[in-house]
């Protein structure tokens, strides 16, 4: 609850703040680097926004994080290294794509378990229904 109160508060503050500064993303002149930066930015969550990535968010924090990402890229870090660095700093919450680890196995596997179980059930039902008609 406390966390959601904080989030609501942060959200309201953002909405109330008149003319939140939009730091224009510093762009790489190298198009390949720019594409890589944009893709990476989409994988990172703006920590104070509602489900927005730092790529689309207009909050100052997202601007700072974009800057950080680009600094690290310019320093020759790989995407993985940058993600690891940010996770160490902010936790898994910053990753838009949850990591595959024991406490997220269910999250990742549930849809496919349901698909598999459903498929098996269909197989059985169809077999039964067909034998009834024969």
């Amino acid at each position: 609850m406390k966390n959601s109160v904080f989030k609501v508060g942060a959200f309201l503050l953002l909405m109330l703040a008149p003319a939140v500064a939009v730091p224009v993303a510093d762009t790489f002149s190298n198009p390949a680097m720019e594409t890589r930066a944009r893709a990476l930015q989409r994988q990172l969550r703006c920590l104070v926004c509602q489900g927005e990535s730092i790529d689309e968010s207009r909050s100052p924090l997202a601007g700072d994080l974009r800057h950080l990402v680009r600094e690290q890229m310019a320093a020759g870090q790989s995407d993985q290294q940058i993600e690891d660095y940010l996770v160490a700093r902010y936790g898994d919450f910053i990753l838009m794509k949850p990591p595959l680890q024991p406490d997220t196995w269910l999250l990742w596997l549930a849809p496919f378990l349901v698909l598999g179980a459903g498929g098996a059930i269909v197989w059985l039902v169809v077999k039964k229904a067909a034998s009834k008609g024969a």
Partner: protein
Amino acid sequence: MIGELGQLALCFALALSLVMAVSGLIGARATAATARGIANGSAMGMLVFTLLAFGVLTYAFVTSDFSVALVADHSSTLKPLVYKISGVWGNHEGSMLLWVLVLAIYAGLVAALQRGGARLTSAALGVQGLLAAAFFLFIIFTSNPFLRLDPIPFEGAGLTPLLQDPGLALHPPMLYIGYVGLSASFAYAAAAMLVGEDGWARAARPFMLIAWIALTCGIALGSWWAYYELGWGGFWGWDPVENASLMPWLVATALLHSALATERTGAFRTWTLLLAIAGFSMSLIGTFLVRSGVLSSVHAFASDPTRGFFIMVLIALAIGGALALFAWRAPTLQGGASFEPVSRDTTLLLNNVFLVAACTCVFVGTLYPLVLDAVSGTKISVGPPYFAITFAPIFFALLLLVPLGPRLAWKRGDLKEAVRALYPAMGLAGIAALAVLAIASPRTVAGTAAFAVAGWLIGASILDVRKRKGARAAAFAAAVAHAGLGVTLMGVAGTTIWRSEALEVLSPGQLMTVGPYTLRFDGVTQVAGPNYTADRAHIALMDGAKVKAVLQPEHRFYPAEGQDMTDTAIRTTGLRDLYLALGDDRGGGKFTLRAYVSPLAPLIWLGGLVMALGGMLSLWGRLRVRAGEPAAQALPAE
């Protein structure tokens, strides 16, 4: 005075809902004709009093009666009339009142239409009475819209500017017609288990269809609103609140298909019952997510945990009760009908498996982070990449199968014949894929596949419509709805894969390019709206040295609410949107401007409309058939 009248009407409605619950359930017995009469009468009475309560609240909003706390907190005299009215449901209490109003309307319809015979109707009314009573208690004890305020303020706090928008004025009523519509099929399913009646799927079909159409329109409206209002050019963010509306839609879609088989051949009886329960459960869970305050986003106005607790108990009772009834009565239902492995029945089962798996993605993707946080305090984000990996392939596989279903006969189909008949659709799929490869850049596998499948869906639908001219309205309706899927798919692929964007700080007179367009920034002027002031940018769309059009994105400030908002400017050709959002004042006449070019974006919502149109055609066919039926249906033997 007027507020107390509303309060009184709510109490009467609660009393009538309890009468309806008891008499309706008693009326499920063959001999209890009097109880049935009482149930029908109380359904109408409940509708009248709920309408009265809602009317009173609307009146308080329209006349800006700030002695009612809710009006003072969520309205202001400055708002235009339309947003005074939509302000009624632009807050927690009022939206719950809208919820029960829709429930009361459905109960009135069930009582008036008497579909499926008197006993089934009576039992369904009993279940609806229980649901209505629970929601009236919820409103009166935790979310009373008629609480007074003393001293009376001179001016209200206003409505969040985000909600002052025609799209969002209509979005909640649409969604609620959908959510609550699933309560009608839930009530019919529970009634069928109580009475032991088989014809419920047929009786409940119009309600399922109305719910599905409304959900489809509601989701499309919400997505359209997010697109033009939020200013980042996206149409779906996998936000928990969006997911809350998608889950009932996925289950309702499965239910529509499964109920069709139950109705035609008697297959999947128990499964269809379970889906009816699951569909309304998803509605309740969606309501819980949005209303309890467990999430915090633009929609989550409520942040009182007692409400969340109340809804949780309500969900547990409704779902638990229905499942207990199911466990008790389902084994007594007749076993499924026989059918061959290659048949429409099998494709409908597969449709259900894929839809349920897709719904599972959305369900765990939405709830898992909340549960994990509650259990272990670990915070994770489940964002679009998760859904791209799980939901997208499952839904894509479903779409591949869609054209086959209508081509196979019930019970025993001919796969070779079906595939042969679909050759032209495959041809269209190939042409669509080649066209994309030739025109679009960059060339991507996902984009090519999406267009191939869209061609496959639309091609198959054209074949269905052409071949079955004059045939059953249902087949025609299904073809239209399936074509809508193809249209939406093209829009989604177009915007997500081929969108271009630009973000620049511009001085007056400066040019910027985005995609194929050249824009000239012609400065910003101050304008005053009815309840806001705005910076209005003048952006000239250039055609060489000539000005082709002027777009005016705005940055609005709402003094009553103390908030600011972007108002985007969108110029569409029908096949491509140019989308502009004005950013901040950077001083010295300079402003930031975000520009997007979204190919095929309008198709996303056009496809939604086409799907809804398919639903409406199906509903129309149903009601027309019913008009030709003998009016009275005999009571089934005990």
